[in-house]
């Protein structure tokens, strides 16, 4: 078995919450040794959010944290105590990459700014994934991923026709910044491999998210128009929507209603759709026999498709339409993603035994590599699980020094 691509690359990971940890998760997937620097004085927010088994909170029990920190190590430090900062600095000295996602100036105030750290490690690559970036009038503004979604313009474009702006439903700006950050770090590593030079990368979650909206931004810069929200519809293609099905079931306190998304991208696919729903004549109907006609008569078309989907389960509609070669997929609740035989057969899921929550299903690596096939090597760390291991084995502290640091409260 070939070594993993980033085997031997160490990351001093000062990030927290979701954007930064999603960045370093990608790098861990590629084989990097990611050491998260945490503190018990202000534990990572995702350790304190649900879901928890049996609904019982606990710093090591959250599925949120345990999902996005698989394969990493955890070291705890309290910078307010003597010796803690020195541990962080020594860790950077032995690392290739340092990551953070605080607002501008925070790492500098701690004495862990890039200019300081590069004195310890001249070819260090450092990335900051802040909300607003390191320059500009709002550089010290605080940000959380959920707020950067509307800030970036996504909410003013997302929502039902005639309704107020809506969110994306999840904190999209976080993983988006994280995965772009991972790519940026890899590009900087490529440059370092060729030239020996490290460097600093300034990422703004806000800017990174705006790169996902070229259609909205260019409609404005080319034509001076703000695009109107239009639900699940597409400017050119119809049908393009999410349609109701007949099945629903109860789970805890909510009714789980099932829907199916359907797109017929061109005339040929529409003809297959029309046949599959038992109305082949629709493909020749002048209201629907071209993309432009279907778009003009989209309400009628959606009504015809809905009348068919509403009589069956979402899974049945999906199966019939896929068999006919039509792009259809259920709007999957988590349960259905969890049980999808496709993901099972591809070996996507990770089942590792975690000391506090046991074996749970976690999302795995979204790619396969034919030669350097990776795997998630360890469950998410308990808080501070690797403090002693990192101090003695990586940084060369003696057991007595570790004991002294602990007594001083530096390893909290």
């Amino acid at each position: 078995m070939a070594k993993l691509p980033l085997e031997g690359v160490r990351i001093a990971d000062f990030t927290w919450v979701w954007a930064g940890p999603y960045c370093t998760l990608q790098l861990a997937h590629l084989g990097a040794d990611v050491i998260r620097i945490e503190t018990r004085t202000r534990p990572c927010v995702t350790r304190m959010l649900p879901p928890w088994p049996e609904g019982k909170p606990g710093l090591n029990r959250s599925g949120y944290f345990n999902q996005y920190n698989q394969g990493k190590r955890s070291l705890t430090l309290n910078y307010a105590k003597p010796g803690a900062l020195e541990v962080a600095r020594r860790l950077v000295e032995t690392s290739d990459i340092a990551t953070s996602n605080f607002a501008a100036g925070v790492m500098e105030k701690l004495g862990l700014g890039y200019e300081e750290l590069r004195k310890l490690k001249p070819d260090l690559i450092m990335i900051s994934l802040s909300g607003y970036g390191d320059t500009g009038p709002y550089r010290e503004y605080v940000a959380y991923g959920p707020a950067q979604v509307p800030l970036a313009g996504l909410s003013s474009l997302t929502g039902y026709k005639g309704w107020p702006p809506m969110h994306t439903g999840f904190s999209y700006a976080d993983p988006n910044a994280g995965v772009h950050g991972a790519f940026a770090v890899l590009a900087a590593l490529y440059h370092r491999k060729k030239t020996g030079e490290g460097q600093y990368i300034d990422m703004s979650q806000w800017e990174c998210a705006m790169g996902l909206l070229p259609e909205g931004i260019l409609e404005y810069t080319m034509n001076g128009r703000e695009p109107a929200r239009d639900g699940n519809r597409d400017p050119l293609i119809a049908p393009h929507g999410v349609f109701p099905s007949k099945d629903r079931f109860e789970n805890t306190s909510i009714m789980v209603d099932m829907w199916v998304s359907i797109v017929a991208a061109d005339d040929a696919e529409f003809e297959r759709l029309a046949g599959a729903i038992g109305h082949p004549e629709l493909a020749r109907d002048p209201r629907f026999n071209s993309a432009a006609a279907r778009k003009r008569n989209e309400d009628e078309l959606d009504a015809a498709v809905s009348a068919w989907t509403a009589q069956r389960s979402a899974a049945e509609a999906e199966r019939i339409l896929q068999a006919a070669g039509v792009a259809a997929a259920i709007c999957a609740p988590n349960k259905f993603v969890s049980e999808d035989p496709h993901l099972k057969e591809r070996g996507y899921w990770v089942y590792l035994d975690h000391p506090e929550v046991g074996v749970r299903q976690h999302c795995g690596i979204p790619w396969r590599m034919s030669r350097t096939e990776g795997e998630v090597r360890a469950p998410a760390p308990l808080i501070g699980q690797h403090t002693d291991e990192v101090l003695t084995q990586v940084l060369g502290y003696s057991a007595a020094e570790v004991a002294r640091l602990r007594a001083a409260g530096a390893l909290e």
Partner: protein
Amino acid sequence: MAGALSGLKVVELGEMVSAPYAAKLMADMGAEVIKIERPGVGDRARTRGPFPGGQAHPEKSGLYLYLNTNKFGVTLDVSRPEGFGLLERLIAGADVLIHNVAPPDMDRIGLSFERVRSRNPRLVMSSITPWGLSGPKREWRAEDLTLWSASGLCYVNGGGPDHPEMPPLKAFGQQSGFQGGVHAAVATMGAVFAQMRDGEGQHVDVSIYESLASQTELFFEFWPYMGMVASRLGQKPIQPLEVMECRDGYIYVCCIEEHQWRNFVELMGSPPWASEEIFSDRLKRGANWDALKVFLEDWIKQQSVLDLYRKAQARRIPFAPVSTMGDLLSSEHLKKRGFFVEITHPVAGTHKYPGAPLKYQRTPWEIRRPAPTLGQHNEEIFGARLGLNAARIEELRRTAVL
């Protein structure tokens, strides 16, 4: 100064968003990208717009122009033997082949890792497909919406508990394609490192479905941890995290850490309701959102967006306005950072585009050339690079191979 990926040679066989975006990320950082399009029609993104003046034109589509900056563009019908032969000659000199040809079409044209490896054993081949290259859904049809839907991301967004009649809702645009593209860029760079170390290539199989399922925040894990379906019809775990209406627009109200909520309560003048036990921590505020919402709406509708944004930020509360496109283009912060870039294209003219997703200290992100016109670099690549003479190029063009 050259970009970080200067020296990396990439061939892209891409349509619409995923593979083109992966290759754009690389091209904008200095990689040499040769993009292959179908003769005559080109990339489907050329039909998507937006178009200046609303007039469709294959050289003026905003989506295409954005996704293909810094690339060389050639036309080639790889479904024909002469065309595939030229593709093999192009990849013989490349580090990476990145494509989003769907599996049934890969089979039809004979695009496989074994075949390309025989021409270049160092080659990294990255296949971005909707469902991945294996599994029962390998050949399923997919579009951007259906992937967002299958992954679980639609199901957690929509009109909320008061509007069960409104369907699960996608995010604007072509987000599945963007996420497939950027995850593929990460995996591809991993394979490039292994290539530099070992001198050997490999096949990277990127599933857009899995890229999306991997980022469902805390929602996926509610099932394996608690047996709970996370739904747009349920309560959010914590509150407030909502778009809310001010007297002059919308703001995003966001309190995640407890001190942020305490500061917000102070900003509202510490009203008596805020000390109710049912609002005393973020989980309780999530469970009692119906009651909390009424109080907050009442106060927020009297505020102005920018004033509340500034006041909240002064107290370290991470609120943000709901920006329109116009707000973004006129933002002083983004101007100071030089985010938007002006690009002049020979047919589409000069427009402002989203710029660098991040800023490198040493290696610049820069626009060296606009997106190619269809087949713009055929002579340069097939003639100067591969050594085909003018008569042969003309013949291939006449027979629609180019």
